[in-house]
């Protein structure tokens, strides 16, 4: 029987990660990273936001793109879930709607890598309910 993974192994793994992460921290400022926020409210979760988030984390790593993937609440675009907000370094955030794995792939390949806009952008000035 194989040994169950434990925190001791995590410590070992951490040492390996440290050198890599130092590089990232030296080039510092989070602005230099691609930032992605996945809308994770009832509407988003029900339509597959978790799958999209996992896909983003895995694929960005595979394709060697330095990015931070995190969560946000409902942005009010429930009809277009799952939605993600992508902020490229030194650019305004862009929100994409109806994101599935295929769309996520397109966003990575076209928008994140080449800064080409793709279909499915939700205009930022669109508001459903006045705050």
């Amino acid at each position, binding site marked *: 029987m194989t040994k169950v993974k434990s925190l001791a192994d995590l410590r070992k793994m951490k040492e390996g990660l440290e050198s890599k992460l130092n590089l990232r921290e030296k080039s510092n400022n989070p602005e230099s990273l691609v930032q992605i926020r996945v809308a994770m409210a009832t509407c988003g*979760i*029900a339509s597959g936001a978790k799958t999209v988030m996992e896909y983003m984390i895995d694929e960005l790593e595979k394709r060697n793109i330095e990015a931070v993937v995190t969560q946000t609440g409902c942005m009010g675009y429930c009809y277009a879930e799952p939605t993600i907000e992508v902020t490229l370094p030194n650019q305004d955030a862009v929100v994409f709607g109806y994101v599935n794995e295929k769309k996520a792939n397109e966003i990575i390949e076209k928008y994140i890598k080449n800064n080409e806009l793709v279909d499915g952008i939700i205009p930022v000035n669109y508001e459903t309910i006045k705050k």
Partner: protein
Amino acid sequence: MKELSLHIMDIIQNSIVAEASCIEIELIENKAENIYSISIKDNGKGMSAEMLANVTDPYCTSRTTRKVGLGIPLFKQNAERAGGSLAITSELGKGTLLKAVFQHDNLDRPMMGDIAGVIVLTAAANENIRFVYSHKTDKDEYVFDTEEIKEAMDGMSINQPQVIRYLKEMIKENLTEIHYSN
């Protein structure tokens, strides 16, 4: 929601919005008493008695971006359909406890799904919050506490693909060890 873990993910978001600094997720499986219970407890800002009374109403929400709040009503519906129930207690300034109980063997009880993924993804995206996930079965208990992870990581962020993957596998393996039911 197709899976209970997604409901848990959803309810945790409520705790995050309520500015909790510690969120405890407790799963108890008791086959002898035919119970599969899910509790989510936070130390957030809590709810007033009035809000609490209306919280299972789908047209009750604290947010301003939309007019409906379906998270709790959907969870409640799922619990009741599976011969169970959902109850919430809350106190302003102290926090909130949500408890959903299912019949363990009920065919209408949704699957738990990827609970390891839910816990790790949420913890990685909210590193300033402590998450304690405990899972009890008839055989044993497993506890995952982000405080311990933080200590092991010694200041390094857990929001990194390798760490997320590792923690997910760690939880999954431990759940298998305690013979959890999906």
